[in-house]
């Protein structure tokens, strides 16, 4: 049994420890917001936060994620930066609102990963520059939402 902490909830899963976290989230826990794109750590569709670090869940074994704090897109609404006190609007909600305000998603499939990548970026850089955004947002989007994603990140950066 492997113990996982996902979005503040504890789970026990009985799978080989080398199973990628992605497939435990999707196929075992049915947290399907995290997406499968390539399975080879290229496209970042499967991005989640692990101990505050955005990472590709297809490239992280469930064994190595055990005991760590995992946040998926299903938990994004409750995500807040250390500088955002309880009772104020957190960055997760700011990101979601900014994404809607800019009407960023098209098919939407890569957007969970985009949002979690952006959340990770804000943990590192409270007001990311254009260069910071370019460097962090490696997620592949076939629909070409990049321009609106950039605008949404900038909007979230200044949201209160």
């Amino acid at each position, binding site marked *: 049994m492997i113990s996982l902490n996902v979005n503040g909830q504890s789970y026990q899963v009985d*799978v080989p420890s080398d199973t990628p976290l992605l497939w435990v989230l999707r196929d075992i826990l049915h947290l399907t917001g995290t997406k499968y794109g390539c399975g080879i750590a290229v496209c970042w569709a499967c991005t989640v936060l692990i101990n505050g670090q955005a990472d590709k869940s297809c490239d992280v074994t469930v064994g190595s994620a055990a005991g760590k704090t995992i946040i998926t897109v299903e938990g994004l609404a409750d995500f807040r930066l250390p500088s955002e006190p309880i009772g104020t609007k957190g960055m997760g909600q700011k990101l979601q609102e900014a994404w809607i305000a800019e*009407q960023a998603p098209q098919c*939407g499939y890569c957007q969970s990963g985009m949002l979690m990548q952006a959340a990770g970026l804000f943990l590192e850089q409270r007001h990311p520059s254009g260069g910071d955004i370019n460097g962090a947002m490696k997620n592949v989007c076939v629909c070409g939402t990049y321009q609106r994603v950039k605008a949404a990140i900038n909007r979230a950066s200044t949201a209160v």
Partner: protein
Amino acid sequence: MNKPTISQATAVDRRKFLKVTGGFLLALTLPVATNRALADTSIPANATGTAFIRIGADESITVLVGGGEMGQGIYTGLAMGAAEELMVTWEKVKVEPLPAIASWLSAGSGGIRSRLPTFLKAGAAAREMLVSAAAQTWGVPVASCQAVNGTVKNLVTNEVLTYGQLAPLAATLPVPAAPVLTPAANYRIIGTPAARPDLVGKVNGSAKYGLDAVVPGMALGIVKHAPVMGGTLKTTPSVPSGASAVVPLGATATNPVNNAIALVSWLPGANTWGLMETMKSISSNIWNTPANAALLDSNVFKSQAMSLLGRGAPFIAEQKGNVDTAFASAARVLEMTYTLPYLPHACMEVLNCTVRMTPATAPFTACEIWAPTQAPSSVLTTVSAVTGLPKTAITVYPMFMGGGLGRKFEQDYITQAITTAMAVGRPVKLVWPRSEDMTRDQYRPMAVTRIRVALDAAGNITGWQNRHVSPSISAQRRTTPLTAHDANATEGATALPYNLPNRLIDYVQHMSPIPVGYWRSVGYSINCFAVESAIDEVALATGADPLTLRRQLLSTSTDPLAARTLAVVNAAAAAAGWETTAVPAGRARGIAVGQAFGTIVAEVAEIGVTYTGGVPTNFTVYKVACAVDCGTAVNPNSVEAQMQGGIFHGLSAAKWGELKWTAGKSSVTNFNKYRMTRLSEAPVITTTIVNSGAAMSGCGEPGVPPIAPAVANAYAKLTGVRVRDLPFFPGATMGG
């Protein structure tokens, strides 16, 4: 699950109200034009579109929409039309997917343009019936009543009744045959940037794509096809440790040969990765390799296509004037040959389908399908054919698509999943791993195009000849040979708006064993590259400015689209500052224009080139100025998004997109060998919407074609190198 909320009723009668508890449902059908003949014979040429509007006793207003949502905004545009005529705000309207039996294909950029008139009329009809119900209730003339924001107001007494209150009486009234439509000048909603209702679920993880389907008790399965294209299954392997079943796939009534297997597990802890690992333990000896495998090679395909340029019996696609005379008297002839590779769709969401048969084992009485599909109605036909069940016993749940791009119109993955579920006697989610999605696509056809241009002594174009050689999508889907040109292959090469009085466009079919399919914008993306590159080559050869040449060819043309095309070209040029803003040092601009599905798009790309060891190895697109005339933009927000999407799709393909074949195996098995544009490489795109007022036309695809020639034209100007063979940079890879 996005369950359809109206029953699987087949009795959706023409012009009839279906009463629902406490409210009413209006179903209205009008003839609509279909824009292209698709292979699916279940959709007649004169297919009808149906608009459904439900007014609830709780004041809810729901518009039911068919097709499939893949990012194109199908759940927005049509419902905007209904809201417009119902005199309610956009925020008041909910959108739900139609059940498959009343649904339609999402293809040919036709989702909104072909059906909006029906939705407008349905909204107006419902409004007039609600107003009539109020007039009856108050005993006043209809003229004394007015629909206002979800209510009807008595203009004499100022009394108000809500739509919910009026719905039961309205449901008993006749449907007006010719409801009065709102003049376009008075539109409150159409033409405004309406928010898409599907985005909330797309930012919190609750939106369910096909791959997200979870059915109680379901098994998981993955597909593996014969590793060599055309290969077949020799022996069904025994079930390996770590799985529960192996199901042979691919046999049909007319061809009892399998070409794939499903590996299925219902063991505790079953997961997709575990199945992919287990699949590796199955010996490759189970597959037969086709005898012609060595010929399934991109070099062979290319030499075949090149030889077909000069021989064979072409089908004439378009002929005007006298090309022979024009070339015989030409002062100068330019001849250019352009080649384009096979391309996969590479949707972010791999193919998948979930099936539940009821009962789990035969004889079956019902079947439910959860699938990402552009063609819910075709899925219904497929399920009925495979299971023998009547369509009324089949439910297709609409799921979001993680991209469709023309691939999720096909039925192969649906058939496989049904076969698997019937074989294992339990619900199954069947998934194509990324490697299968890339190596068993139905690819954009490769193409070779030779354009010859006759010029007079002054450099004017006097003759235009375009021979196009490519596999035929439509011919591959039927048993009889072509008897005329394949319009999907030549679209974008024919009907050019330019003043080209002597022209001959013909087509030679290239028989190819590689399966080909509909790739976003189909023939247009191929032919626009050749045509608009060639026009630029004429400009360079004659010393003309590429913009000036296009203006001249359009302003002297009698083609019905010439004036609109000229306006779009001018709008893009103005937005790019072609004549007003100097190009920064080290950059160049290129322009191209194309029409697809009735929509005209011009794009100006401003690029700079990266050199490694003196050789151009990459280019950066800094800006794209896009102008689009789709007649009337229903939702400018979506039009802009679709233009951006089309530009990225076309740009990635032009720079890096290529899938080669060696001994029947694809060179691309995953994204690491299929580079796509990333955010850090994204140009700033401006979209200028030219509302010409012409007939409405689609936007999902027309943004794609002009970007490849626009960047090729800029590249030629900047480097002196004319790229006629796509992609620009073959063999590109992509890391994490």
